[in-house]
């Protein structure tokens, strides 16, 4: 009954209520979205650098190198010579080196030449079909399989570069031989093939100065049938790759290599951990600014609830006195005021949580288009959202405190005599 009365009281003054709910909703929505984005963003970024200590690539911006080679969101810094990279890849400090060669895309999805180690690093098992072995065989990420509805045995032509509108390479068709299991990492949105496939695809025009490559292109038809041919092409001299993901056996290398390589070669190595931290701290400023804004709005909504309750208290003194005459206890009046405020907060929180998720799914759609990165709006971060809920309730409690105590201490006789 008390709760029902509180509920009816809320809607008896709809404008006050709507103002408070809107303010609460927007602040909760902003915070929810930020919490989800921040967590999922960091998760995505951090999970992708697992097992990568350093990235070796062409000189340029280290952040760009990391973004392009680990996250596949930026264009590469340039190419490096595979021969000189190999010297470092075979260094005893190195536990695992995964070479990457970028070439083409298919409808905006990058085609990446690499070794099976790459799939292993991301824990992407093959769910259907098999690993790529021969040139132009590809394993596609699970998201691509779903979005482009590609199946095992399908063939397609790649477009040059990373723009979907690029020149179409129609000498060779890629053939889907495997589909990887979903991992939630970048590999879900990649098309993977052998490195020689990339070389061979570009053999005709791009690296025309390289005769070996041209020959490779010509012998391709036979090459496809022989494993030795494929293995041999990886040992092809004078070829270029884009980057190498390095995992170290000896942690000394992580510290010393950036300087050694910068001094001795035309390459650079960058640490994903450092670059990503740099990126986060850049985002962090924006995120905390938005967070302060959201908490500010929450404070204002608390004040708005307080003012609404306080203002109506004067009008409702008679109502409260009457309830006391009818046998209501002081505590019941306190409860009515408290519950009204808390109900507002709960309603605001529920709307905010929903609105935040609607916002996130819209954000996710646009991020999907631009960065092939999606957010999951249905995830609940109990710890943080629970804290947010408690905070909202706390705001309601504080806002109602003075009006509720005033209702509790109401002098019935005086109120009724003056009425």
């Amino acid at each position, binding site marked *: *009954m008390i709760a029902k*009365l509180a509920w*009816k*009281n809320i*809607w*008896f003054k709809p404008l006050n209520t709507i103002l408070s709910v809107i303010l609460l909703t927007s602040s909760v929505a902003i915070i929810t979205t930020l919490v989800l984005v921040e967590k999922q963003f960091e998760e995505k970024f951090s999970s992708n650098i697992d097992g990568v200590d350093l990235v070796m690539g062409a000189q340029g911006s280290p952040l760009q190198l990391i973004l392009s080679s680990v996250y596949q969101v930026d264009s590469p810094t340039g190419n490096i010579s595979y021969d000189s990279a190999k010297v470092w890849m075979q260094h005893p400090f190195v536990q695992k080196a995964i070479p990457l060669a970028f070439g083409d895309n298919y409808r905006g999805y990058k085609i990446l030449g690499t070794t099976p180690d790459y799939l292993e690093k991301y824990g992407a098992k093959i769910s259907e079909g098999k690993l790529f072995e021969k040139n132009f065989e590809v394993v596609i990420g699970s998201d691509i399989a779903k979005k482009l509805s590609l199946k095992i045995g399908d063939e397609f032509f790649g477009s040059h570069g990373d723009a979907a509108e690029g020149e179409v390479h129609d000498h060779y068709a890629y053939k889907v031989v495997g589909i990887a299991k979903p991992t939630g990492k970048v590999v879900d949105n990649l098309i993977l093939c052998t490195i020689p496939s990339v070389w061979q695809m570009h053999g005709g025009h791009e690296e025309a100065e390289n005769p070996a490559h041209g020959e490779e292109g010509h012998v391709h038809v036979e090459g496809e049938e022989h494993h030795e041919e494929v293995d041999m092409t990886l040992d092809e001299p004078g070829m270029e790759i884009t980057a190498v993901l390095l995992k170290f056996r000896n942690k000394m290398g992580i510290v010393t290599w950036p300087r050694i390589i910068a001094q001795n070669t035309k390459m650079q190595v960058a640490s994903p951990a450092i670059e990503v931290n740099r990126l986060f701290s850049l985002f962090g400023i924006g995120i905390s600014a938005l967070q302060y804004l959201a908490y500010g709005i929450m404070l204002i909504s608390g004040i708005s609830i307080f003012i609404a309750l306080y203002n109506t208290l004067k009008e*409702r003194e*008679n*109502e409260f*006195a*009457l*309830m*006391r*005459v*009818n*046998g*209501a*206890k*002081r505590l*019941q009046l306190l409860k009515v005021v408290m519950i009204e405020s808390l109900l507002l907060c709960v309603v605001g929180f529920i709307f905010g949580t929903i609105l935040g998720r609607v916002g996130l799914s819209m954000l996710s759609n646009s991020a999907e288009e631009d960065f092939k990165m999606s957010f999951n709006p249905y995830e609940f971060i109990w710890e943080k959202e629970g804290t947010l809920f408690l905070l909202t309730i706390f705001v309601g409690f504080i806002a109602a405190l003075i009006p509720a105590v005033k209702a509790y201490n109401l002098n*019935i*006789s005086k109120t*009724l*005599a003056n*009425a």
Partner: protein
Amino acid sequence: MISTKNITFSYSKDQVFHMPDLYCEAGSTLLITGDSGKGKTTYLHILAGLLKPKTGAIEIDKTDIVTLSEKATDKFRGKHIGVVFQKSHFIGALSVLENLEMASWLATGKKHTKRAKKLLEQLGIENQASKLPSQLSIGQQQRVSIARALMNEPKVLLADEPTSSLDDKNAEKVIELLTSLSKEHKAALLIVTHDNRIKERFINKITLI
């Protein structure tokens, strides 16, 4: 029935009200009159347990309410005392019927919807049950107050200037309803008033000096 003995009350040290003793049988009516400032409303509030007297005893149905704690007084008042005020106050957000139900629920924990509907019928306003109190005329509002005061079948019905804001016709009707219903429900009816229109109607009178 209700009886009082040696009630005194003071807001401050210099001014002490001596309230006359009174006695009212169940089903009968007692009028308390007096000029403004003589403490009519104060007396009514004391009788309703809203104010604690300095000395004296108020016995309602063999319970001395002066000795009860505040909480117990609230409870006792809800169950055994019905009050009708000069100006009707309602819970604005609740409908007429819900107001009656709330009065019953606060006192007993039960809604007693049937009794509420029956009372509204007796008072001739059953078709207003789902309206908000503010949508009713003043005369109708006063009738709802009477219904609410009778909701918990009180032993004592206190009315504070129940007719002063009403026109002759409505005043007549309200007094009529108060007396007949208090008889029917076997409640002692105490009316505090300075309204000359109703003074002649009653034999039992106490005047505060």
